[in-house]
């Protein structure tokens, strides 16, 4: 197993080194000639208006929250999917299946609720 992680560590190290090297390299070869236009924030070539930190709508938050909940759901489904075949071989397939259907059914009610409440509508 150590060797597998050695590859991961190697990839991570190369990734970090690449970014640092690129930045340092461009730092050395680029000319520095600042002007007010160059220093202003890039906003699709428009004149930037107001600060970048604006208040978001609460809709984003509710979306993110629903995302987290279904993310957690995925985490539970993954080992279930890995194991379902071996459960079926032991005659426990129906049990595991019903279990997951109940789990998903309960969360489906939640999705329906969010839908019905208009949380998913984006105006």
């Amino acid at each position: 197993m150590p060797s597998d992680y050695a590859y991961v560590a190697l990839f991570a190290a190369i990734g970090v080194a690449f970014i640092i090297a690129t930045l340092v390299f461009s730092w050395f070869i680029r000319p520095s000639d600042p002007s007010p236009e160059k220093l202003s924030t890039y906003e699709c070539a428009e004149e930037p208006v107001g600060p970048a930190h604006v208040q978001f709508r609460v809709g984003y938050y509710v979306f993110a929250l629903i995302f987290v909940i279904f993310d957690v759901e995925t985490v539970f489904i993954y080992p279930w999917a890995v194991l379902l075949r071996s459960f079926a071989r032991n005659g426990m397939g129906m049990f595991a299946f019903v279990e997951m259907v109940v789990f998903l059914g309960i969360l489906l009610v939640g999705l329906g609720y969010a839908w019905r409440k208009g949380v998913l509508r984006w105006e």
Partner: protein
Amino acid sequence: MDWHTCSFYVLSVMILGSALMVVSLRNIVHCALFLAFTFMGVAGVFALLHAEFLAAVQVLIYVGAITVLILFAVMLTQKTIGISLKQTNRLAPLAVLSAVTFLCMIAVIALNTTFPTSGQHTVAVSTQTIGSAILGNGSYVVPFEVASILLLAAMVGAIVIARGQDN
């Protein structure tokens, strides 16, 4: 020091350092980003213990989803972004004192405790182990199903609290 111990210490420094940043920086967005680093470090520790599934979950849920959620929460709150926030109040020394006392106590006890460890060095297939713990007959079926109700209640509660008028 072998690579295992070495990477453990590197990860520990990463976790503790970023966690310290989370509770001491004055820009709340930076705090949230350092929180992601903390979560990454914890995922690294899980990977080190050969709990690959848990490490993946940690990255997927905590680094991916929770950090984004926190950032959205920060962004929808007015008057917290771009200003310098003081994270401590006048009770901070007392809090530090009690935390350090607790740390010392738990450290002394932990050093004098022999944890009963299993002879098995590593759990070979963590995904299967977790899966059968959740799904297997007579294991954690009840908490698994209750977790879905918990998630549902959390979603309904958050929507009720976060949204304005009833329609």
